[in-house]
């Protein structure tokens, strides 16, 4: 499969995962309200589920936003530059994202997963191993590395062939 093909598959899978997490969050908290008012028997674990869903949504969504290039950035300099200089700057930005994803999310995140699994830390209400919750960090790290590598390769191509500079829409 081509890089673009792989990317489409990853995009779709990630989108549906995020949509599912978001829907679960809404249903879960509405369930919490309903059990308290209608059944007068508040469920004890919905709050914990909701918090962990948000951690997953936020960290995974961060990778999705890298893929869509919608993270907030000051694009004064990138929009001023043209041709090869612009390509170099874009490459630098993607390298920064890649390095952060590899070190903090990938390395630090998996370190945290091993550490908490090793210590046997579990959540208060559901007794889920906390390592499972933190697993979203290395997962998001891998996805972020995937997207920033693709974007970096695009910038590198533009550096090599600056004449046919393609407008990629830029960041918002």
């Amino acid at each position: 499969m081509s890089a673009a093909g792989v990317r489409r598959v990853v995009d779709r899978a990630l989108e549906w995962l995020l949509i599912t997490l978001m829907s679960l969050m809404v249903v879960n908290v509405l369930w919490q309200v309903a059990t308290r008012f209608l059944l007068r028997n508040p469920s004890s674990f919905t709050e914990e589920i909701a918090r962990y869903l948000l951690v997953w949504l936020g960290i995974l969504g961060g990778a999705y936003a890298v893929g869509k290039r919608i993270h907030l950035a000051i694009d004064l300099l990138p929009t001023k530059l043209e041709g090869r200089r612009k390509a170099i700057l874009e490459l630098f930005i993607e390298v920064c994202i890649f390095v952060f994803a590899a070190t903090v999310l990938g390395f630090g995140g998996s370190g945290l997963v091993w550490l908490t699994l090793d210590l046997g830390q579990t959540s208060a209400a559901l007794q889920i191993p906390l390592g499972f919750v933190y697993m979203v960090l290395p997962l998001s790290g891998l996805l972020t590395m995937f997207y920033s590598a693709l974007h970096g390769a695009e910038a590198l191509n533009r550096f090599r062939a600056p004449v046919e500079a393609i407008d990629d829409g830029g960041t918002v």
Partner: protein
Amino acid sequence: MEWLHVLVLIVVFGALLLLGVPVAFAIGIGTLVTMLLGMAADPALITVAQRMATGLDSFALLAIPFFILAGQLMNRGGIARRLIDFAKAVIGMLPGGLAYVHILASMLFGAISGSAVAAASAIGGVVGPRMVEEGYDKDFSAAVNISSATTGLVIPPSNILIVYSLASGGVSIGALFLAGYLPGILVGLSLMVVAGFFAVRMNYPVAGAFRFSEAIKKFFSALPSLLLLVVVIGGIVAGIFTATEAAAVAVLYAGILAFLYREVRVRDLPQILLATVSTTAIVMLLIGTSTAMSWLLSYENIPQIVSAALLALTDNPVVILLIINVILLVVGTFMDMTPAVLIFTPIFLPVVTRLGMDPTHFGIVMVLNLCIGLCTPPVGSVLFVGCGVAGTSITRVIQPLLPMYVAMVAALIVVTFVPWLSLWLPAVFGF
């Protein structure tokens, strides 16, 4: 030693920001590099990762994606049109009527959607062209749009006040929401005064005569949308549910309303959810890395150092509050609101509470202050959207914006030094 670390943090973060690295990553990398100066790589990496995850591990924060989703559902539900019609029926008869209509509609819509950017595009996209049709200057109407769009961030429900509640270590969200009403209305009124001054001078037309029956009719048409505010704020203030539960109820309410109005179909839902996820993800990653930076600053004892330095400079509360406001205004011009609140609340809140300021009051001052930064270059998301919607440029819109900035700063000073404005409503409701 600490100052070297802080210097490295500021230089790395600032340089990456100016080069165009996304803000969330600039904050994260700046934090990481600074930590590596003082500790081994392994604990540093694991700590940053852990702070990012635990920063999001909060039930209160869940209200943010829910309010965003409710806003998305209502945006499609023709709510902007109904609110504009209502505003027009109520205050359209004044000279320069459409300018007031614009400001009032922004206040209502901003409150409901909880997003200044959404208000700028939804209200500005409808009222802006109509103002130009009736002979208003295009840049003037863009300036009205940009400045009034931020009022909804102080008028509840407000996502940024939830972030402040978290950063301040648990100031009541209900109290913060109630505290935001009068200051938000004050900003709206100040903007109306400026707009009115220009409307009279430029001889702008009235938007229509006042007819009581028309006002009542438009009120009932806008009522279901306005009721959302009553359900959410009423529910929180009465202690029926938490802000997060209220936000989930708001999603349910907005969803039912959108389906009843037949403005949203089931097959639109995945797209609406994805749009919500995108906006949420941007905010959440910012919260994650900002939490890491905030942790680093307190690890380096920065809040204590800043507090001591400020109090050594002067013990005059007026001067200290002015200094803090000026610092925040400068920060706001280049930094987004969410990281600014997360990073600067732990630094400044201890100082102002030492001076006897109420944490609820300070939250309103801080958010009101940072709202101004959303309308100023170089980084102002509302400024960018407002210019885009109106089809004008930043350089052209700055001149009509200047008097609006003056009005907003004047309102900020009043809110800073008149605590009653923020604290009266919460006191009435027993917070």
